[in-house]
């Protein structure tokens, strides 16, 4: 048996992130409390260089490596770049929050970078084992991050719940993988796809798909495997919530796409109905329960659940158009959710968490500019044209309509109309209610700048959506 040295070039960004995470881990040991900023700067530099590496090596062609367990294609590159940028924004948004609460530690950054590595592996997975590897690396980092605030009972409780439920979901995912391995005889996604079409025993196949989908649905937070989402979003420090709520969604989308399109694309009829059910449940529960929330972090958690419903809608279509629409949705949603949570961080300060909806009352009187930014974000999440969220919804809906599932599109629109209520309520509270506190809002220059850029990106990409839309379509159809 000969051992071939794999081509490591496709995995250059992964190797870079891994090395840097280790270096930061070591460097951080020698830093005094006052010079902790160095870890932060190093992490940010790592992400920026990672963007440069990926952009420099970008190509739409797909390359397999590491005995076909790893794939680097256009989709992977675009999603990875989105992950780096999202994480960069998270680190920046989180900085002051962490400092104020004595959480400004190297662990946040090393765990964050390991999570990024997990996401990258997940995005580039071409084998059940790589998928599982990436998923676990990501999840374990996130569990630890949720518990970062050790003294907080809430955070520890949330981390415990997340960990136990995550373990159950991982178990189910593994079980589903073993079923499918059993009937297709391979762990390689391409081989599975080829063999699955000729499987005689549909029962085992669907049995496996159900378990597999539960694993993905848990990671995405789709109903009825969503229970952890609100508790973790609320319990975790906001700086961690903003991380969980943004970049990992891109990885979860990649996981869904790799498993269902790359791995089980040939038997899409078998999983389409299951996915439709999950979509409908997520849209219904997410939108309706969000209305009853008074805690804005919980509200955004349920809003995430409903957005996940929309995100899966494109994959339901099973076409190139649908997958690219979902990808667009994932990127869009990440951008909006970063802005939304950043606003919460912005309004919080030492000893005070702006978690209640009521904390947004009369924001317009306290700071018209931030109120305006939040207005852009909320309109966009509700899907009001011309903001970015409108295009995301429009593209998944048109993908669904083009495969003749008009009823599903109509149902989705109805739920999103119900959902518009709680976004608009935030706007109403900001503009029409009287402010309860007249304290001016303090925040550092860099955060203020980034949050403005973030909200305006939502507006500007909404006005000129063509570039991002066609980028998504190009990379999806090229792979």
């Amino acid at each position, binding site marked *: 048996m000969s051992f071939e040295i794999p081509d490591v070039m496709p995995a250059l960004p992964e190797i870079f992130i891994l090395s840097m995470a280790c270096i930061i881990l070591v460097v951080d040991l020698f830093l005094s409390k006052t010079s902790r900023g160095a870890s932060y700067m190093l992490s940010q530099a790592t992400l920026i260089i990672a963007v440069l590496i990926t952009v420099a090596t970008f190509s739409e062609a797909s390359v397999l490596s590491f005995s076909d367990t790893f794939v680097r294609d256009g989709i992977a590159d675009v999603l990875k770049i989105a992950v780096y940028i999202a994480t960069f924004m998270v680190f920046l948004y989180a900085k002051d929050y962490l400092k104020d609460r004595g959480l400004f530690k190297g662990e946040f950054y090393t765990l964050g970078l390991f999570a990024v590595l997990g996401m990258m592996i997940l995005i580039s997975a071409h084998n059940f084992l790589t998928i599982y590897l990436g998923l676990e690396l990501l999840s374990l980092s996130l569990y630890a991050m949720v518990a970062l605030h050790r003294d907080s009972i809430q955070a520890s409780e949330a981390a*415990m*719940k997340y960990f*136990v*439920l995550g373990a*159950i*979901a991982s178990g*189910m995912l593994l079980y589903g993988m073993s079923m499918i391995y059993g009937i297709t005889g391979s762990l390689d996604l391409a081989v599975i796809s080829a063999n699955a079409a000729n499987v005689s025993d*549909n*029962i085992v196949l*669907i*049995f496996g798909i*159900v*378990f597999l*989908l*539960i694993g993905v649905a*848990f990671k995405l937070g789709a109903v*009825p*495997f969503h*229970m*952890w989402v*609100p*508790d973790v979003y609320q319990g975790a420090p906001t700086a961690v919530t903003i991380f969980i709520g943004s970049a990992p969604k891109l990885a979860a989308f990649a996981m869904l796409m790799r498993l269902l399109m790359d791995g089980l694309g040939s038997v899409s009829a078998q999983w389409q*109905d*299951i996915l439709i*059910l999950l979509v409908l449940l997520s849209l219904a*529960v997410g939108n*309706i*329960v*969000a*209305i*009853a929330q008074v805690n804005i972090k919980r509200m955004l958690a349920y809003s995430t659940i409903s957005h996940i419903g929309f995100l899966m809608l494109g994959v339901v279509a099973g076409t190139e158009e649908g997958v690219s629409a979902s990808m667009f949705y994932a990127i869009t949603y990440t951008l909006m959710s970063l802005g939304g949570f950043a606003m919460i961080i912005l309004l919080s300060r030492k000893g005070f968490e702006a978690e209640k909806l009521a904390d947004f009352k009369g924001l317009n009187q306290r700071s018209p500019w931030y109120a305006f930014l939040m207005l852009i974000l909320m309109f966009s999440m509700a899907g009001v044209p*011309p903001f970015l969220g409108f295009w995301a919804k429009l593209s998944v809906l048109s993908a669904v309509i083009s495969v003749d599932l008009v009823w599903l599109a109509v149902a989705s629109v109805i739920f999103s109309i*119900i959902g518009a209520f709680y976004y608009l309520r935030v706007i109403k509270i900001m503009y029409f209610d009287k402010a309860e506190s007249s304290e001016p809002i303090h925040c550092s220059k860099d955060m203020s700048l980034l949050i403005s850029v973030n909200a305006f990106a939502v507006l500007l990409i909404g*006005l000129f959506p*063509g570039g991002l839309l066609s980028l998504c379509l190009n990379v999806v159809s090229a792979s």
Partner: protein
Amino acid sequence: MFEDMQTVYIWIVLAPLIGAIIAGLFGKVVGRTGAHIAAIAGVAIAFILSLYVFKDIVIDGAQAFNGAVYTWLVSDGVRFEVGFLIDSLSAMMMVVVTFVSLMVHIYTIGYMKDDDGYQRFFSYIALFTFSMLMLVMSNNFLQLFFGWEAVGLVSYLLIGFWYKKPTAIYANLKAFLVNRVGDFGFLLGIAAVLMYFGSLDYATVFNNVDKVNNLTMSIIPNQDWSVITVICILLFIGAMGKSAQIPLHVWLPDSMEGPTPISALIHAATMVTAGIYMVARMSPLFELSTTALSFVMVIGATTALFMGMLGLVQNDIKRVIAYSTLSQLGYMTVALGASAYGAAVFHLMTHAFFKALLFLGAGAVIIAMHHEQDMRKMGGLRKYLPITWFTSMIGSLALIGTPGFAGFFSKDSIIEAVGHSTIPGASYAYFAVLAGVFITALYSFRLYFMVFHGKERMDEHTRSHLHEPSWVVTLPLILLAIPSVVIGYLYVDSMAFGNFFGDAIFVLPQHDVLGEVAKMFAGASSIAWAMMLHSVFTLPFWLAASGVATAWFLYMKRPDIPAVIQQRFSLIYTILINKYGFDRFNEIVFAGGSRAIGKICWRYFDVKLIDTFVINGSAKTVGWVSLILRRMQTGYLYTYAFAMIVGLCGLLLIFVYPLK
């Protein structure tokens, strides 16, 4: 000079927009001076670039530009985009709009100097300039509609600029509601265009008129209507709202509640002419429907005559000019109906200059009189305000059509053209426009004599403070007076009778009334001179002269007579002072009627059916469901794990079990 004309076009619209944003959003930061510098700079850039475009298109004869600069979305083959159509028609409109706007901007520095809303005002008028430019430069119906609504919005905001004044709020609400009626027709018209042509692009629509020309639609069963006629009339209803034609004219006189600079800019020179511009732009459609043209002509003629008559009994200086504007818009509309599009747009241009001049002159008088607008308290202002007096005289002479002045050429072209028209309603229209000449001269010089000549009727305090306003006010008056004199002479040959507009305007050979008129002057080297020489032998000249003479007799020679006339003909006077009862009628029938219907709907449908059943019912259901689901979120780990297991079993039950 510029490599790419497209960049020039984009900057023409962007410059005022940037000015508006700076003055509006950063008004506090940049201060009063900063705000007016930003707004004026924006409009000045637009004006200079418009002149350059005018030179390029009209003087150098460059190819017309038609193209999209930004596509927002393509839905089902229909493109929603921002695009420009720059030909001689839009180039001329751009110059007129930006020039008058620039004058008004400068004037505003003086007029609004003590107002708290100084920056807000500059922001609005710069925004108006942007919207109006979007409207005239558009190459598609959607952008036209955007500009149409945007100018309407700014007009609404400016009429109610002094938002603490109840009459201003009433007036802007009225303008808003009446324009809604017109815009509804306009929108239906655009929808009909989209439905039958499948495109909103001007060029595509005009190139396909032949395919739609013979189609009919039946809205009422067994009644076949020509599609083109329906489209044209619907579009024209939009124009009736914006250009204040009977019966949708009621908002314009009330709009005088706004500050005078905007009366000049929006409610006289530019926005209200948008309807005229739109119909001229749509000439390839309107030409195909004689019915629509007749409709246009009759409406215009009625407005021209009857609205002018109302100017005779008004005592508020701005309202007299407002009714004059209505009447002149009527003239333009008549010209459109007669297919004399060139003359209509020509009159639009000359009118923009002299009417803006008259309004700004009235504004100067109002400042000098400390915001007194009643002409009965003025008189003899000539010696106190010499520049205002002289420029207002030029404006009035241009308005009544004194040979040689701008209004003469455009108005006489219209009258002659209507005289040659043969479509139904033309003879009525001819009578109306002729009679209108006398009326115009009478009310114009009534105003002129009452304000600038005769006895000084103001109180002593006001008199002692009378003086000419500062140069920022008088300079625009002088700059507007120049085109009010010469522009007609310069452009009558090419615009009214020549080939100025080229392909921008389309006239069927059998409708070419201006061509017929031009034949009268065949052989003359300059139609302008021929018209002036000829005018002494025509009715309009003598009608105008007798109008002036009557005004002089009634208000200078025997100022006691008007009161006697008023008593003798009290019935007519009552009708006129009540503006033919349009306001009362609207108040009772439309406002009252819709309030009554609203009340019924509210009481029976809204409260009983919708509120209790649909709204509260569904809200309660949603609230109830969400409460239950929230209860399920217990916070206990085992509940969550259990939910996952239930989910798993459910999925297996639904998807795997049936395969057994």
